[in-house]
């Protein structure tokens, strides 16, 4: 009996499902409040994201007629499932990760991009013109930032020589890789902004061009699942960057101290930049993002070779 309960609680309540979602929503509130304060506004109250999510859950869901209903309903669930499972391999709230196996860093990154894939497919599934354009943009942008973002996160793994998250954290316990591998850190942070489709890279859901991108036709439950998936992805991404680049997390307070500055960096950067067109983003990523990360890797390998 003892064995059964903790993993269930792990899974559903504390670091897993509900805990992850609530923390994600809290982090989304911090993000919206920061953006508002930087724009000289008061910004939303602390329970705003929860109220939004709850209201969307209680609203009626319209399923357009010529849409494959199973895909329409299933894709949001697949997206959020991917992100929630990614939450299991990441040291949330400073506690050691629930599960870890060799190569779990790669699996987490794959699970995170599962949400973007399901958003793209959801956009492709409807007849609304805006969703089709939004879907193509989401997928093109996925190929742009995915490779540099993954290579940036594999930098610390290279330094330690293993793909297991716990080993990497243990290996780099003392040093802050943020300063020893600065280029990798910058590309990782900007890659996270690309993955979360934040303003410089929010062409896929550019409100003034294609209304709401791939999610134009979603309402109620489907919309809230995608929205919660996006906020949880932000939380998971922040924890990964903090864990890998800031010398591991060893306690809830340390977790908050390390993730909030990164969130401040992201919000600040977001308010300073105009939205890039989709071709400009792809150009930016492949011309600068990939080259910078390769440069970082070369430096790493040369240093490892010497020592």
């Amino acid at each position, binding site marked *: 009996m003892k064995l059964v309960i903790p993993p269930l609680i792990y899974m559903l309540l504390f670091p897993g499902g509900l805990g992850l979602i609530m923390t994600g929503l809290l982090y989304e509130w911090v993000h919206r409040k920061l953006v508002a304060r930087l724009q000289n*506004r008061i910004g939303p109250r602390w329970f705003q994201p929860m109220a939004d999510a709850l209201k969307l859950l209680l609203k009626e869901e319209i399923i357009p007629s010529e849409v494959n209903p199973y895909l329409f309903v299933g894709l949001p669930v697949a997206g959020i499932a991917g992100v929630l499972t990614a939450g299991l391999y990441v040291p949330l709230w400073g506690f050691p990760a629930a599960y870890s196996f060799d190569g779990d860093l790669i699996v987490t990154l794959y699970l995170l991009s599962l949400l973007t894939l399901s958003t793209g497919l959801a956009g492709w599934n409807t007849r*609304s013109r805006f969703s089709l354009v939004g879907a193509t943009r989401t997928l093109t942008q996925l190929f742009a930032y995915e490779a540099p973002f993954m290579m940036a996160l594999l930098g610390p793994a290279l330094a330690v020589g293993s793909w297991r998250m716990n080993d990497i954290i243990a290996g780099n316990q003392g040093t802050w890789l943020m300063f020893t591998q600065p280029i990798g850190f910058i590309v990782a942070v900007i890659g996270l902004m690309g993955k979360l489709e934040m*303003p410089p890279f929010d062409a896929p859901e550019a409100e003034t061009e294609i209304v709401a991108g791939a999610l134009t036709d979603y309402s109620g439950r489907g919309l809230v699942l995608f929205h919660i998936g996006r906020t949880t992805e932000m939380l998971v991404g922040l924890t990964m960057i903090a864990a890998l680049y800031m010398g591991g997390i060893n306690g809830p307070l340390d977790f908050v101290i390390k993730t909030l500055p990164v969130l401040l960096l992201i919000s600040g950067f977001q308010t300073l930049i*105009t939205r890039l067109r989709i071709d*400009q983003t792809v150009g930016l990523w492949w011309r600068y993002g990939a080259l910078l990360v390769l440069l970082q890797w070369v430096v790493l390998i040369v240093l490892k070779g010497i020592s």
Partner: protein
Amino acid sequence: MVATAPAPKPVNAELLADVEPRFVKVREFLEPIASRCTVAPGFNSPEPNRIDVNIEAGDLLTAASAFYDNHWGYLAAITGLDHGPEEDYLEALYHFCGGAAVTTLRVKLPRHGGSVPSIAERIPAAGFFEREFAEMFGVYPTGLQDCSHLFLPEDWPDGLYPLLKDTEIPSPKTIASMDGLDKPIVDQGGGRFIVPIGPQHPALKEPGHFEFTVEGEIVVGASMRLGYVHRGLEKATESRNYIQNLYLLERVCGICSHTHASAYSNAVEQLAGVEVPLRAQAIREIVAGLERIHSHLLWLGVAAHEAGFDTLFMYSWRDRETVMDLLEQITGNRVNYSICLLGGVKQDVNYAQADALRAGLDYLEQRSRHYYEVVTTDSMFLQRTRDIGTMSLAQAEYLGALGPTARASGVVRDVRVEAPYGAYRRFPVSVVMDTAGDLEARFKVRLKELFVSCSAIRTILDNLPDTELTTRMPRRVPAGETVSRVEAPRGEAFYFVKSNGTDMPERVKVRTPSLCNWTSVLNQAIGRQLADVPLLIAGMDPCFSCNDRMVVVRDNSMHHGVRSASSKGDAHHTEIWTWEKLRQYGIDFYRRGGNK
């Protein structure tokens, strides 16, 4: 009881000096055409700055192209004038404006079944005016490619021409009930991938329906359907007295409300021969300057929002609140100021308000300098604006662009300088120009105009003439016709008012600036990315409620050397749709893809 004719107006020398040489030139190249006219040949000049010429319908194209060949100004508007069932004739007035002079070609037409040769081949901007003329008066332009409804809704009963004097129009609810919308769905076949923007769309503050045919992300065809904000104002002015019309016409457009109010009151004051006291004219110019500042700051925010730069939107609108507070203190309302009265101004600017104005303007000038620096140096913003939607000087003249959009391409056209009205003679304003012609130049021109407005208001405040605020204005305006041109924040607003001695005008024609800028915007959209389109539309600062026009720009229809994506005339893979098909596709797309 018809009022007597007004006393002869005092003719100021400055106006004559500018107008005289232009009329000599007009008489010289129009003489052969005018003499051929059978009805009443010859030139007559009802007002010092206006000349009327009666010509035959047949010579219209030659006369119009004569104007452009001799580089004599541009076609400002086409006014339809119905002289009523008794005299049984209709008149089409083609107004050409050059500097301060206005030449009107008058063509007499039968009231029913008349037709006019189209001059849209030579002057693309005329395509709009002819479509409106056809729709409102039933005089169809021969040779115009596409003249389906411009303003009126699709389900408007055929053969019902609203602006003819003797048509009685059923109430809107009956028209709505005989709605012919459930036509069979036309299968649109292959054709291109159409992205509809509007009428309900976050990029548009106002309803307009754009359909961009795209290949991947590149726009290859653009068409636009407005008409959502058409309320039938010109017909309504004929059933209201002069004082009520002032407030009706002030609400043609919320952002440039003072422009329309002052243009209309200038026209009525010219007709009544009333001279507005100097202080009232100066206060009108102050409010016009404040309106220009508020309109340009608003535009800066909306354009930045559409480019995705929300911080600039938030900050520019926060600073715009200063000018809105000033307007509210002086006039009593933030948007529709209603400070104009026929023959003067309602509110005065006392010393306290003058100091508040000076303080507010200093703050605004300092902030506008900062925005100017942001807009011209921020490299991420420049990626969205530099050499995008470039329009050369020749194109701007050819397409008839007006206001800051034209001045950004080097066209010197500003009514406040060319034909100064009201207080602009005593407190002149300088023209702001740029030659690059791209979106960045339009940002620069509008922001520089902020500085000009700030300094103009300061000079007026320093030497505000102190006379009383209003003069006596007769309720019945003596019969006559007049033209009044005013520089709105978006370009020149053109008013034609005809009075018949009673207290209700016989005809009020409003041609608003955004109307002339539409072709240029849609032309720039072709060949650009879809992502640039909202910024291009915002670039010309469209004011839909100012006008309601529809233009169809197919990729090979606008040949005439105007840049278009595919080469002239080749329709190798594009399957060209008629407008009917596109419109039907738009409607049934909504019905099928829309609700459950």
